[in-house]
């Protein structure tokens, strides 16, 4: 058959679906494919989500306007509420990272939880009294998930001042360019509290005061890549359930 029209090839470069006969021709025609590829270089250069049309607005901190005034020398003023620090300004800035994270993560976690189901039940839960420094409230074995070699033990300890910590013994291979993180997760494996970075060996991480352990009974160890993404990677290697 004859070649695709130049217009069709441009649409193909934008990854628009073509009519069936054009798309069948394109699949087999080297000349047309090479034309699409050469047009696509520009498309690919800017086809990144960061350059897409603006999504959710984020209020810049007041210092940004001050810097613009300083750099331009304008004497104009903006409305007070635009540059006023809202009471929640700092947390909001941190929280705005959320919408750009993959939404399929929770689904991955649910899959991991299903895998874990059988193993978690087998985790030996013990209540330990009167440790040397602080009183162990509850302890749980961390069992490997799937084929992982990671295992260990987590112990919730109440210190004399009433604060609680988790003493973690992790028996797991050392990681290269990744790290272990420990989480408390609810039974639905949707909501979770990150407790911090852990490494093979024994260490203590603090528990947020007033955190309801009954709501987050799963102790989970994940492998996190060094990607700056603060959310759970979806890769859990060991888990146990606190008896609360």
């Amino acid at each position, binding site marked *: 058959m004859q070649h695709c029209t130049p*217009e069709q090839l*441009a*649409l193909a*470069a934008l990854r*628009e679906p073509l009519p069936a006969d054009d798309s069948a021709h394109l699949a087999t025609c080297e000349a047309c494919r090479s034309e699409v590829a*050469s*047009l696509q*270089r*520009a498309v*690919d*250069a*800017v086809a*990144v*989500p*960061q*350059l*897409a*049309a*603006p*999504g*959710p*607005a*984020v*209020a*810049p901190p007041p*210092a*940004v*306007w001050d*810097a*613009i005034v300083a*750099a*331009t020398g*304008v004497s*104009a003023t*903006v409305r007070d509420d*635009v540059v006023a620090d*809202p009471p*929640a300004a700092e*947390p*909001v*800035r*941190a*929280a*705005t*990272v*959320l*919408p*750009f*994270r993959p939404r399929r*993560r*929770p689904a991955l976690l649910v899959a991991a939880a299903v895998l874990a189901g059988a193993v978690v039940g087998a985790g030996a839960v013990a209540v330990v009294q009167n440790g040397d420094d602080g009183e162990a409230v509850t302890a749980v074995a961390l069992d490997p998930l799937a084929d992982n070699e990671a295992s260990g033990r987590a112990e919730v300890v109440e210190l004399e001042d009433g604060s609680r910590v988790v003493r973690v013994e992790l028996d797991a291979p050392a990681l290269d360019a990744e790290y272990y993180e420990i989480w408390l997760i609810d039974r639905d494996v*949707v*909501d*979770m*509290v990150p407790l911090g970075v852990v490494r093979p060996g024994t260490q203590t991480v603090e528990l*947020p005061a007033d955190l309801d352990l009954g709501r987050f009974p799963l102790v989970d160890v994940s492998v996190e890549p060094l990607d*700056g993404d*603060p*959310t*759970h990677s979806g890769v859990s290697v060991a888990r146990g359930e606190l008896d609360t």
Partner: protein
Amino acid sequence: MLAEEGVQHPFEPGRSGASERHGAPVSELVAVRPLRLGSVRGMATDRRQARPAAAEPDDREIGRRFAAGDEQALALAYERWAGQIHGMAVRAFGPGPDAEDVTQQTFVSAWTGRAGYRADKGPLPGWLVGVARHKIADTWARRDKQRRETEAAMSEAQAGPAERVTAGVDTQVADRILVLDELDLLGQPQRGIIELAFFEDLTHAQIAERTGLPLGTVKSHIRRTLERLRTRLEVDGAALHA
């Protein structure tokens, strides 16, 4: 990466009030974040107070006064669109100094380069977004250059003279800057058409519907613009790597 995130709320003239409602719900996120990492709940509620639209100049008027050098128009533009611009910057770099620099540089550049803005180039907010894209791409290019220089320096320190690697340029990082630059040179409606395709991920049929232009016109503009961008990349991209 979430390609779909950026394209759901087109940045259109007259929609600044509406689009602000997509802003992060303040108090809910504060409460949500510590316990709900990995969840995306609570992103869509309307917490921003409606802005008193009456008695404020419309977007077109702000654009006209901005181009004419009215300082208060810069303040009005900031009030109205800084959230959108900063949202883009935060999407690219996360909250913090890099994003704040991008937002600041966008408004400073737009102001000092206001002679380059004319109402016939489209609404001011769209033009500001174009400036912000340049600032984001520039920041990427600067980081890429620093990374490569560091790597080259390390390899020079470790390797013998025969194995030295010179700091190169990432093709896509360089292409991106050339494409954004060439887009600035396009007239309307070509620029608007290709931006809808590139940045809002619309099909040519959707673009025709949005702009009211005939399908055939949209298709031939897309074709000619992609050819023009290809030429720019072949000429200047080749020069960069020579």
